[in-house]
Each structure stands twice: as C-alpha cells, then as structure tokens.
C-alpha cells in the first residue's frame, strides 16, 4: 500500500506552510465538499468526550446514536439534538438497525473493548467508514479480521490511538527517526497497570433488566455469557472476558514504538516476562522493547534510546532529551487525550479524500499483535517465541490456543 498518508508525520518540516495551503487547494479542487454523516455507537464517558469534537468539525452531521443502555442512549441523543438544534437524532438499541441505514457514512465506535473488532467489521461490511476507539481487538484473530475487512471493502479505518498525531509524541518520533540518536536499540513503553485483567471475577447474579432498559445479552455480545450484575458495567476493565490487559496502554505506547521503527507489518519475535511490573520483547534483529509500570512521570510514556542519545515523552506534553540540541528548532505542541481534534479531523478528511489515515487497520493490527502476544506470555509467565508472518507461537500449543477468544454465537469473525 504505497498511497500516501494524510497528516504530516515524518514529513520534512520546511514546507509545512506550503503543504497545508497545497492540500487545501487540492481538497477544493477534488472533493465535492459533501457533508459526512455520522452515527455514534456506544455512549459512555469516552463517547461523550469525542462526540462534540466530531460534531464541531466543519462538514460533519450526526444522525444517530446507539447504546444498549437506555439512559446513556437518551443522553447521547440529547447532546446531538442540542448541537443540531432539532430533535431528529435517531436512537438505536441494536446497532444492526443503524448499520442498515444507507444515509450514514461513518461511525464512531466507543463501546467497551469486547465489541470493538466485531462492530468495526460489521460496520465495514455494511459499507461504513470507521473511527474505532483503541484497542482495535481483544485477540490476534480479531485484529486480523479487522484488517481483512478494511482491505476487502476499501473502507477508511482510523484507530483511536490519537497520540500518533499529538505534537509531543510526533516530535519525539521525528527525533528518533532523524538518525540523531544513532541506531535505536531499546524502546520503552509505559504501562501504568499490568495484569489488571488477567482473570475474571464474578458477582452474584441480579435480576436481568428489561430489554429496552438495558440489553444485557447485547452488552455481552461476543463475550461468554454470564448472569447479569450491574457491577460489570462499570468494572469491565478488570475482567479477562471484556478486556485485553496489556492492550490498555500498549495500544498507545507499544504502537508508538512500532511506528518509530517503521515496523507496521511485523512484530517482536521473542517475549520475556521479567517481573509483575516489567516485560521485555525483542525484534528479530535484537531491538529491545521494554514494557514497564514504573519510572515514568506521566501516563502513556515512551522512551526511545539509541547509541548516541535518547528522547522521552508522555501525556504531560513535555519532551525530554539526552541533549538540548535535539530540540533546537522544534516547537512542541501538545493536545489533551480528553479532546483530541487532529485525529478525528484527519479521519473525516480521509473519508472525503479516500486517502489512508495515520492509524489504519493493518498497521494497528500488528501493534496489537505485539500487545496480545505480550499479554499471553505475561499471563503464562514464560518466555515465548512468535512468528509474526504466520501469527503463531513456535512450539507452544498452549499459547497458540490463546490466539483466539471465544466468540459467542451468533457473532462470528
């Protein structure tokens, strides 16, 4: 896939102004400036952060919201209606009804992690473009299916790994890729928590709510069935069935490490648990990836180390470097993870121009392969060898059974 990406990551900075103007010009000349119509699936806290961001970007119109929880669904409809100044926003309990609408171009998916891959695939199969929150999958098989669906249906896919386009992370990556750190040998990915969802925890069953109030079966979706308890709804992050453990932060930080190495079609080959807060992975050429909980200033920290220096950054927006000269002539801009604008805007631009986004499915699939393989080795607590081409562990049939997860019928990949 060599069609060029929008966005300015890794482009020479010199002509930034010219490039911006040039693109504006081309957009005017090429794309009929048709409005992108959107639907929102999932209406929890993340969704209510980003829905206004999407709606505020010029040329967007929100048409529908979907959630299995009536209260959230109605709240989301209220947000959209207030923005649009009417009461036209449709609300759906079953996303399939929303996907059947021909007038919706693009979807923002912000459900719990267990639904991400399934919804993205169903949406692309229905001819929709997709902005999907991270992680993109709960298993290696799911990620592969997302990648294949995007490819088959030629859909625009943007993963919600907005740090790929946030200024301080871009600056750190540009420094690492400029060669001024020498040969990169160790990349650190901050994790904050590891082993948070390494098992399931069960609560006593409660009476299942009415379908229309809260559709429990649909909430569970492809995850294994269990009796209803309201605590799962807020606490799903700590359940193995609903969460991908190291994907929580790895989908950002491991992803940035893969990106900085330009390794978007492969993954580390050796995975070595060190202790509960540290994990090492190695690429086939020996480059080391360190996942660790401790020693970082802020969330989502990454550190790139080369023979001649290092650079580190995190959600504080600061970029730290081994030598101040590395930051000369670089203006560092940051953007809050709460309200990223560049990333959603790029998605909508690409929906019109049909160019590749900066976080497309294939590239994300491989960084999630690294996350999932690390999670499996971390849970089994033993070193594993992995083949990124066949997407299988070498000589370890137990580990290989964890490459897939249950997919409760009728949902299927």
């Amino acid at each position, binding site marked *: 896939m060599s069609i060029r990406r929008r966005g300015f990551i890794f482009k020479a900075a010199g002509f930034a102004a010219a490039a911006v103007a040039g693109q504006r010009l081309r957009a005017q000349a*090429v794309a009929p400036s048709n409005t992108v119509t959107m639907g929102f699936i999932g209406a929890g806290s993340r969704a209510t952060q980003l829905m206004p961001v999407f709606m505020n970007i010029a040329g967007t119109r929100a048409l529908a919201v979907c959630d299995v929880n009536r209260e959230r669904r109605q709240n989301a409809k209220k947000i959209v209606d207030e923005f649009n100044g009417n009461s036209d926003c449709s609300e759906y309990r079953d996303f399939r009804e929303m996907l059947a609408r021909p007038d919706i171009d693009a979807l923002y998916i912000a459900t719990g992690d267990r639904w991400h891959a399934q919804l993205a695939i169903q949406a692309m199969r229905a001819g929709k473009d997709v902005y999907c929150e991270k992680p993109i999958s709960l298993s290696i098989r799911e990620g592969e299916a997302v990648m294949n669906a995007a490819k088959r249906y030629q859909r625009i896919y943007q993963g919600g790994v907005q740090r790929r386009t946030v200024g301080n992370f871009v600056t750190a990556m540009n420094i690492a890729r400029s060669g001024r750190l020498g040969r990169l040998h160790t990349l650190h990915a901050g994790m904050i928590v590891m082993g948070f969802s390494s098992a*399931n925890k069960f609560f006593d069953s409660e009476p299942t709510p009415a379908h229309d109030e809260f559709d429990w079966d649909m909430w569970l979706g492809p995850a294994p069935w269990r009796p209803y308890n309201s605590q799962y709804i807020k606490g799903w992050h700590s359940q193995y069935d609903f969460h991908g453990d190291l994907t929580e932060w790895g989908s950002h930080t491991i992803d940035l490490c893969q990106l900085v190495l330009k390794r978007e079609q492969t993954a580390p080959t050796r995975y070595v648990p060190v202790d509960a807060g540290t994990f090492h992975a190695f690429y086939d050429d020996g480059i080391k990836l360190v996942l660790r909980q401790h020693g970082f200033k802020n969330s989502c920290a990454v550190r790139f180390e080369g023979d001649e220096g290092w650079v580190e950054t995190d959600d504080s927006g600061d970029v730290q470097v081994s030598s101040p000269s590395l930051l000369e002539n670089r203006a560092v801009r940051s953007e809050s993870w709460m309200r990223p604008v560049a990333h959603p805007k790029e998605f909508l631009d690409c929906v019109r121009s049909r160019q590749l986004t900066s976080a497309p499915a294939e590239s994300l699939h491989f960084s999630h392969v690294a996350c999932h393989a690390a999670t499996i080795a971390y849970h089994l607590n033993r070193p594993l060898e992995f083949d990124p081409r066949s997407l299988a562990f070498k000589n370890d049939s137990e580990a290989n059974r964890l490459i897939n997860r249950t*997919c409760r019928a009728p949902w299927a990949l």
Partner: protein
Amino acid sequence: MTNKSASCRSGLCRALYRPAGLLFSVLLSLSSAAGEAALIKQLSDGSAEERDAARHKLLVSATPASIPALAAQLAGPATFDNACFLLEALGHPDADAALAAAIVQADDRCQAGLLNALKRRNSPVAITMAHGLCASGRAMAKAAAWDYLAAVADPADLADGTACAAMPGSALLTLAERLAETDVKVARAKYAEAMGERFPEHVQLAAFCGLLGLSQSDMDKLVADGLSRDSAVWRGATARFAANLPEKSLRRIGVKFMRSLPAAGRVTLIEAFIAAGNRNGAPFLRESLKNREDTPALIAAVGGLGDLGDASDADTLIELLGHHNEALADAARMSLIKLRDADTDARIVRALSKRGGGPEAHVRLLGVAAFRKPHKAAPAALQYLDSVEPAVRTAALTLLTEIADEKQLTETFSAACKAEDPHEQRAAEKALAVLARKYPEAATVAVRPLLAAAATEGRRALLTALGIAGRPDGLALVIETLGDADSEVADAALRVLAAWKDIAAAPALLRQAEAHRSNSLRIVALRGALRLIAQEPGLDARAEMCRKAAGLVQRDEERYLLIEAWASVPTPEAVAALKPYLDNPVFKNDALKALRIIASTIIVDVPDAAPGTLISPVAFKAHRISDYRSEACAVADFNGDGKPDIIAGPFLYLAPDWKPVKIREIDNKVTEDGKGYADDFCNLVLDVNRDGRPDMVAAGWFDKTSAWYENPGGGKGDWKRHVIDPLGNHETGTLEDIDGDGKAEEFLPQTHVTVWYERSGNSDGQATFVRHDVCNQTRPFGAGVGDINGDGRQDIIRPDAWFEAPEDIRKGAWRAHPIALGAPAGGADHTSNIIVHDVNADGLNDIITSVAHKHGIWWYEQCRDGEGKVGWRQHLIDDTWSQPHYLAFADITGDGRKEIIVGKRFMAHNGGDPDAFGKKCVFFYRFTPSAAPVFTKHIVSYDEGFAAGLNIVPVDIDGDGDIDLVTTGKWGGPVLFENLKQ
C-alpha cells in the same frame, strides 16, 4: 510464579497479579485424566465462576479424551457455548465430527455457532448439512451456512450459478478470494457476479477491487471505469490501485483515458500520479497542462508538479503565476515554492531579470523568491523597486529584506525611505531594521548620503535604522542631526539617541537633558541617560553622572530611574543620596532595593527593623507551608519528580503545592501555646539503603532511640521504620563528613556520650548502621566536626572537649583535648551544633558556636603557643537574644562567602529559658574572613510569627540559583523563606 511475586516491589501490583498467577499455575499443573474429567463436570454443574475457571483451564489443556463429554454438552443450552468453543480449540478430527453431529438437533443460534466453529477449523464435514441450511428459513444459521460453504466447500461445487444464486455478498466475496489463488478465471467470474445489481454498492465496490487485483488485458478499461464513477469512494479505491501500478502502466492509462474521463475522474487520476510519488509521473502532469481549458485538472496537475516536477517545469509555472484564475496561479506559486531542483532558483532569477508579465505575476514571483531566498536574485530584485505598483515594490522590499547584501543596501534603503502606502511602509521599516541589524557598518555608511536628501518621513526611518545599527559613526550622525533645521527630524534624532544602546550616548543625552528647548524632550533625554548610567565602566564617572542627573530630575517618574542608577554606585555617597528616600513611602521599596544591591558590595550603615541589624543585601519572603508544631525538618526530592520536597515531623510536603502526605506517626504532646514536645528531634536526609531514593534519619529524646525511615518512592506514605540504636536521650543530631570523603553522610547524634554512625549492610544485604564509639563520658550537648590540628583528618568537637581523629577512625582511639565552648568568659554549656571555619584567615581553623538555651553566639579563635599547643580566644558575635539552638552556615548572599543563619528555638524549655518570650526571629550574620572580622547582623524574619527549631535547611528550593531557607518549630511550621535575590 513465586519468583515473579518475590521480585515485584509494589504491593499493589502483587495484588493485581495474583489472580492470573493462581489461574494459570493451576492450569499448568493439571495433567491427570481424573482432573480433566472433574473440570468437564464443572463446566456443566459449576457456578458461573467455576464454569469460567474450568473453561480457562481446559482451553489450554483439554485432551481428545474429553471430546465425547463435550459433545454431550453441546445439547444443553447453558453448556453449549463453552463446549463449542473448546471443541473448536481442541484440533482433533473427532471434535469436528462432534460439532457436525450436533447441528441436526441444534436451534438457529447454535447451528450458526457450530458452523462458524467448523468454518474457522476449515473442516468440510458439514457441507451437506450446510447446503440444506442455506435453503432453510433460519436467519442466523442460513447466513453462517453460506459463509461456511464459501470458506470451506470445494469451489467446483459452488462454481455453477444455480448452486449459489442466493449467496449473500460477503460469502460470494470470500469464495472469490479463495478462487483467486487457484482458478483466476472462475474467480473473475465470481467477482463479476458480485458486481451485480442485486448487491449493495459497497459489495459491488469490493468485488470491483477484487477484479482489479486479478485484471489482465482489461485492466486499463477497469481503471477507466472506476475513475469514471460518480462515487468518490469508488474513484478513491481505483486511484489507490492505480498508484501502486508500475509507472509504465499508469502512464499508459493516463495517455489512453485522460481526455475522455469526466472532470472528477481526471483529477483523481492526476492525484494517483501524485500519490505514486514517482517523479517519472511528471511528463504526464505536463501533458495535462496542455489542455488549458480543463481548469480542475489543470489545477491538480500544477499542484502536483511541486512534488513530482523539476526545474524544467519552473518556466511553465512562472508563466502561470500571471493566470487570471487565482486558484491556478496560487497552485503554481505553491509548486514553485516546493520544487526541489536547485536549478529552479536560477530560472526564477532569470525570470525576475526579464521582468515579463503583469504586476500580479511580479508580486507572486517575488513572493516565491522571498520563500526560496536565492541570493543571486538580489540585483534583479532591485529593478522592481521603481515599479509604479505599491504591491510590487512591497514584495520587492520583502524579498530584499531576506536576500540583500551590502552591495544592495544603498538602493534598498533609498527605496525604503520613499515608501508611500502603509503596506509598503511596513515592509520598508522591516527591511531597514533587518538589514541594519545584519550589516550595521554598511547600513550606517548607506544611510549617510540618503539622510541629507530624503524627505521627512524617510529621514525618520533612516535614523531608526542608525539606532538599530548602533555604530559610533551612526551616533555621530545622529548627534549631528540634533541640530537639523527640520525640527521633526531633529526631534526624531533625539528619540533615537535616547534609545541608544551603549553608554557612548550618555554625555550627549545629559547635555540635551539640560539644554534642549522642549521640556518634554529634555525629559526623554534624561530618561535615556539614566537608563545608560549603569553601563559606564568607571565608578567615579558613574557617580559623576548620577550627581549631574540628580540636579536635573524634576518628576517622580525619573526619580525612580535615578534611584536605580545610584544602585550601580556602591559608595557612601550613594547611600547618603538614597537614605532620604526611605522616609518617602512612594520611593521606599525602590530605595530599599537599591540599598540592598549596594549592601552586597559594601557595608551599608543603615539600620533595619530589628535592634542591631543593618539593611540586608538579600530579602526573604516567608511562605507558610503548614502549622504543625514540631521542631525538625528536612528537604530533598523525596518523590523523584525533580523538585525538592519538605519533611517535617510526620508529614512529607510535596512540591510545588506542598500537599501533605503522612509518612509516619510521632508522639506529639505540644500544646497550642508551644509547651510540651514532639518526640522528633532531628530529620536528616540520607539514602540509607542506596536505592537512589532519599530516606530519612530521625531520633527521639523521650524514646531514646535513633531510627531510619525507608522512602517507598513516588510520594507515597507509610514509610517503614528501622531502628538504628537505642542509645539514650537525643538532643538532636547532624550529618557530618567524618571519613573525609567530601560527603556529609555520617550521623553524629548529640547525646551525652560521643559516638558516630556510618551506613553499612548486614549479612542479609540489608541496610543498617555501624556505631563507632569515641568517648563514653557524659557531656553537655552540642557537637561538630572539622580539622582542628591541621592533620587533614576530621576531628570531633564537643562543648568541653575536642577529640583528635586517629589514623584509623574506625578502630583507633580518639584522643581528648580540653576546650570550653558555650558560656561567657571561657565557660562550657550546652551549645548549638559546632562549626569549624577559618574566621580570621590565618590558616588555622576556628570555631563558631552558640549557647543553645541562653544568650550568646561566639567565635573562638584558635591560637598556638610556642610549642604548637592549641589554645582558644573567645570573641562575642551577639548576645542580645536567646535560644540560638542551631547554626546554618551557607552563602545566602551569593558573594562567595558563607553566612551564619540562626533563629530562636521557640519555647525550647517550655518558657523556662531566659528571654523565652522575646520576639520571634531568624537572623543571619555576615563577615569577611580577615584579621579582625566584623560581623553585621541582618534580618531573615523578625516579629512576623516565625522563629526556628532544631535546624534550618539552606537549599535552593525553587531552583532559581539562590539559597532559600526552610525551618520549623513549636510556633507551627514549616516555613519556607524564599530568597528574593535572583
């Protein structure tokens, strides 16, 4: 699993990890058949939790022996999902057979699940049944059956149209994708079928893209078809395919279809060339330029040349700069800016020289040049300066601002000082300023002839340029112009002079301040002079200028500047001149500031608020951190965020907002009026276990024990206590450099006996302290360390003896010598800590200390008799206030010499000490080591509610380069005294 738990430091992550450990360790140990059977039973009979655990375990460990039991569970609605998933994972032919066998009896949902499992296993055992289900009315099973057949069945069985006339789009695409690897012809037919009307457009598109991927001789036609579509999605997918084609193929398609494609398609095709990023695509873009009628495609192609073109396109692009379609002309401009080829600059220079086209083209071309900055363009740019169009002249000035060198200065300046329209004037001012800064000498030379000839507005601009250049010649010229006949110009010259950057202008300014005809300009001149005085290198000359200016000052506004100027004159005359301002509330703060600056060089004999104090060279601002009544504190970066934090008593206060974190319990009986004690008599910073995080050493009077508290890092609370030694009452203690390694890391407690401790590890590798006994005789409190006898070793000093360090400080005996410190007339008493310093600069170390609970701070001069025997002569520093319990010794004035910082230990004996209720205070004493040192006393804090306790920490806590002070006491602290010097 145990190794992981043991090596995990944090309790939290250990707690988090345990579930997984449990889960997977059980699963790994599971091997017996009996265990497996039990799990299978749990899968059906267990609670939700047990079923889940059983599924997890069986997932990685089940054997084919379980297949019959799992097959039986497929029949139960509650057990179906787990059984189906486990059979899928098992990977044994019998599992496939079991899954297939269950289809017959299953309901719709379960049939779909079974078929999906078999599909993922790529197992053809259920083909016949699937065919049957495809024709059934069961929605879920039907869809799954089609997917299953498409993925698994022999394509030959599905190839004929009737067999799969009702196949859904996604299944059809799956089938075609499979066929593409074995039978391209049939695969193409299937794709063609999926492009049929009965499928939604996005399925048709997916099929079209599949067909493109398999295209042969029909490729060009297919691409043309894709590009002709109305749908941007469709065109975009085609462009993506086209961009990946070999350059030759793409070019062929371009030649064949460019003219016949609809407008949007032409643009998309050009985009494909640009996206391909291959510079060989440029000829095609050039071809598109030939059709000047097709504006959208033209704009796209022109825009693409910036990326793909080379210098040979520059001429065409330059020609388009004058195009009446602005979007097109603009695209040409952007491409010209982007063209990488170096020869482009030469062409731009040539075009500039030719001066073809109209004014719009000129403005754009000059703008491109201003972006690319080709230095050879400067001579050509000059000719645009005489254009009749202001916009052209403005663009030329902007370009010359970037690229002109000395040779073009005269002409550029000449044009600049003629600027008429406001845009042009702004560009002219910028050109003058930038070039005068870049070439100060040449600019000054260039201005001289122009200044005589230009009109008023121009002459003003030229004078400003002279000011920016700031050369002596220029200064002479400005001074000359002061007498110009054009009064507007003369006034402008005065303003330039008043803003002059160096002291050379000061004499002329003072003259003008005295004699200029206009009162307001006299003030301007005076202000200019006052601003410069501090730059004058000679002290006498500075004083003279101040004196002269003082005679001319009329308004308060200039008096402020005069006070600032006097601050640069450290003489008694300046002090005398400034003193009267102290009585005027309007000037008091400024005068005080000036006097402080002078005080950093000479002694300023002006009294401050407290008795016996003089105005301080540095001022402190008190920040109350808390109001907790205990007496010891410590400062270090305890949470590792790079900012120093404060510990006082049981709390760690985290910078920068000093949020308290409770790190330990202490026994605190202090009342609201400061009576009673907190059993916490020293807080000292030491990385005891050498883990890189500073720990804390503390000691108690009442519990008679010293202990260290282990810092868990991260600003967390509940520090673990480790006892060091239950030695006895601790008055307080300090860290000292006893082993002479330059680091104050040995713990010297102030106890009745004399001992010291150093860090060590015990046989388990855990941190601990080793005690070294010096003398077990009971003495007054007070202790210090320093080399008394000049043998290079650190001796230990107590109020009534000093101990000479032996060669081996750990094993040797410390020899006692008499001394008497801490009372008037040569007596001994409890002292503060004892400082060793050569106060009189005679090469022998002297002693500074104070009496802990009464009146008196002294220094003790070391004398030697004829035999070299050590003796002491006592000198009083101050005895006007009581309870100076601790002396800090640090350079807080930044003059390279240390000061003694000392404050009242409030309620040290609960009101029983002399002058116990005197004003709360912290002072510092300043002296210059010399034969007869003079100590001046200055205020840190006086009568504002803050005193000291058992220690004062001098530390640059705000990172601004000067030393701040932190202390606490039973008055309720801690307090941070911010040094306002920097």
